[in-house]
């Protein structure tokens, strides 16, 4: 039938245009290439941390020495991960952590040390080991501390000098600090020291309390600005508010960026966060609840509206058939 042929032509050219300006153009725009012009494919690694990406990056940059260093570092991490940790022994080690990671902690050298209440639940085991061994290497931000700065958590390496003590404290975290965590708690522990969430009235200081008097509200605001200034000084710029980030970045970008910020945004001062799959799901749930709260309603309403128009179209077709009867 002629009309269907015409429709096929229209649909073909529309879809072709769509393919070219959306999937194809976005792939071309955001693809990364190495010095030889070969495309670098950034794979999602299921939130497992083995340092492969870090080593590849160093190799690609032609820095053999660094690549060897990173390889050795992550192979040590693997060794420690193979040790049997003793949670009871790790408790004493954890007490040292609490010296900084306590409730109501103040900014220490850049950020407020985050709560470790659910560290065993939301962070990957290898990452935790790496972090205690060398925070800068674990975060893949060692380039920031190569010359003048020391990592604010740098002193941790002197607290856990031998491999067994690291294995013990990680075992403790995984046994005792792995309770059920809400999406917002996951965000607070993993992200809030740098990123605000203004659509949920969350700042770098956490939830904004309700104040009776404007004076108190302003005093709190000044505290927030001071904290933001400290973070800004440490990070180079104020990390973005994440209220709308779930709509502003695609799924693949979010996953791979959180696994290794350097891969997507070379040179960024953001360290790797070390979330495991569960931790990421929790953080994502919170980002979605704030940045895209209509998602649930949208998906619930969609079939009804589309169903309505399917019925509408069937009725319209019958009406058309009736009106055109005898015309041909």
């Amino acid at each position, binding site marked *: 039938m002629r*009309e269907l042929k015409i429709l096929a032509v*229209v649909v073909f050219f529309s879809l072709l245009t769509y393919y070219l300006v959306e999937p194809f*153009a976005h792939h071309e725009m955001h693809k990364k290439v190495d010095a030889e012009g070969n495309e670098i494919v950034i794979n999602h690694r299921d939130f497992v941390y083995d340092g492969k990406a870090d080593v590849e990056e160093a190799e690609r940059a032609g820095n053999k020495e660094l690549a060897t260093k990173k390889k050795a570092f992550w192979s040590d991490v693997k060794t420690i991960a193979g040790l049997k940790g003793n949670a009871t022994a790790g408790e004493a080690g954890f007490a040292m952590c609490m010296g900084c990671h306590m409730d109501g902690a103040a900014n220490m050298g850049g950020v407020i040390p985050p709560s470790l209440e659910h560290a065993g639940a939301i962070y990957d085991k290898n990452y935790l080991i790496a972090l205690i061994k060398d925070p800068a290497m674990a975060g893949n931000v060692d380039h920031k501390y190569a010359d003048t700065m020391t990592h604010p958590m740098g002193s941790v390496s002197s607290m856990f000098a031998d491999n067994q003590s690291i294995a013990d404290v990680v075992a403790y975290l995984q046994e005792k600090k792995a309770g059920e965590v809400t999406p917002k708690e996951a965000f607070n522990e993993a992200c809030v020291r740098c990123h605000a969430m203004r659509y949920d009235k969350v700042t770098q200081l956490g939830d904004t309390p309700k104040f009776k008097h404007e004076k108190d509200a302003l005093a709190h605001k000044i505290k927030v600005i001071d904290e933001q200034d400290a973070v800004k000084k440490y990070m180079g710029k104020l990390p973005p508010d994440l209220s709308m980030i779930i709509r502003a970045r695609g799924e693949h970008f979010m996953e791979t960026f959180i696994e290794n910020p350097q891969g997507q945004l070379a040179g960024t001062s953001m360290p790797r966060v070390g979330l495991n799959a569960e931790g990421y799901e929790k953080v994502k749930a919170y980002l979605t609840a704030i940045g895209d709260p209509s998602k649930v309603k*949208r998906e619930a309403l*969609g079939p009804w509206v589309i169903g309505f128009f*399917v019925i509408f179209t069937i009725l*319209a077709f019958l009406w058309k058939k009736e009106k055109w009867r005898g*015309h041909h």
Partner: protein
Amino acid sequence: MAHFDENAKPFGNKWLDERLGVNTLMKVLNTEYWIPKNINFLWAMGMVLAATFGILVISGIFLMMYYKPDTNLAFDSVNYTIMTEVGYGWLWRHIHGVGASLVFLIIYIHMFTGIYYSSYKQGRELIWLSGMGLFVAFSAEAFSGYMLPWGQMSYWAGMVITELFAGGSLEATGLVEWIRGDYVPGDAYLTRFFMLHVLLIPLVIIGLIVLHFGTLRLPHVNNQDGENFDYDEAAKLYKEGKVKESKVIPFSPVFLSKDVFVMGVYFILFFYLVFYHFNFAMDPVNFDPANGLSTPAHIYPEWYFLWSYEILRPFSKDFGLIAFGIAQAALFFLPFIDRSPNVAPAHKRGLFQIWFWALIVIMIALTALGKLPPTDPLYATLGFIFAVAFLFMGPLLFVITKFEKPLKKGA
């Protein structure tokens, strides 16, 4: 004074007819507005456009109740107030965003239909010209609307497009500042584009739609074969009940029944996109708030402007602007460039058919290249080739139609 029946029931048909001429109006606009029978679903695109415009107006009214045209508030009024706090605000916004994109898809289909069936000449020039006027008005409407969420792409697209008014080497920065109301897009800029988007341009669009409908009346709607027949005779046949023999149908209800069916199919697609596939129309980059200190890695317009953007891009600054200007104006002159005496579908017009499909390929290629990064030498070269090809399409049309043989009547 006319005669009024004193016994007519108030607000009854007779009463209204004597005062308002409702029966005449009904005939003129509906039951005796004759449309050719020999048409396909592409003839429904006009009504699909009217319906989409209606949806844009309605959704726009709802959005305007909560939108704040202020650089400090705009982003949050859209992304927080409308998307989070207002009941179904998200639905209106998605409808408005997707509708703004789809209206251009249908405009392009409508335009290419007109070109394919030679529906722009021999009495139909004003239909084409008023339609092109609508295309320009819709473009301005789309651009001004894109500024309002005040995201990164709003800001930087606004910066780039207003910069065009500097006229390249003319360096008319004064004009640019006058348009922006500031050195860079700011509060004055946002407020005036809000005014343009919700008042001035919609008024122009409504006026042009009325004109567009008016221009259709005397030359009549074209048909699938470009056949010119006696409408009075055909209408007479139809009214006598010989609907099978007659070449026309009344706008209402016969033509309209088909339009409504096509609209139904269109709305299934429309709402599928609104609920499940909206990113193509609501660029994720624009969910980052405007920041004058951080340029996005890639600045590109919405898909429907890409072909003209790509005509601007591959040339030197001044020649690019000239080429861009020519490209914008060229389509207006189509009825006068086409010298052929034939009003017929492209597949009956020899070389014109090849010209038509070449135009489609060039426009799609330019659209794709307008978004692909020009830093890639392959894309830059292709962009240059297709932009030049587009500029040659006008003179080429003039030549091939000049030598086009008149078709025999009834062929």
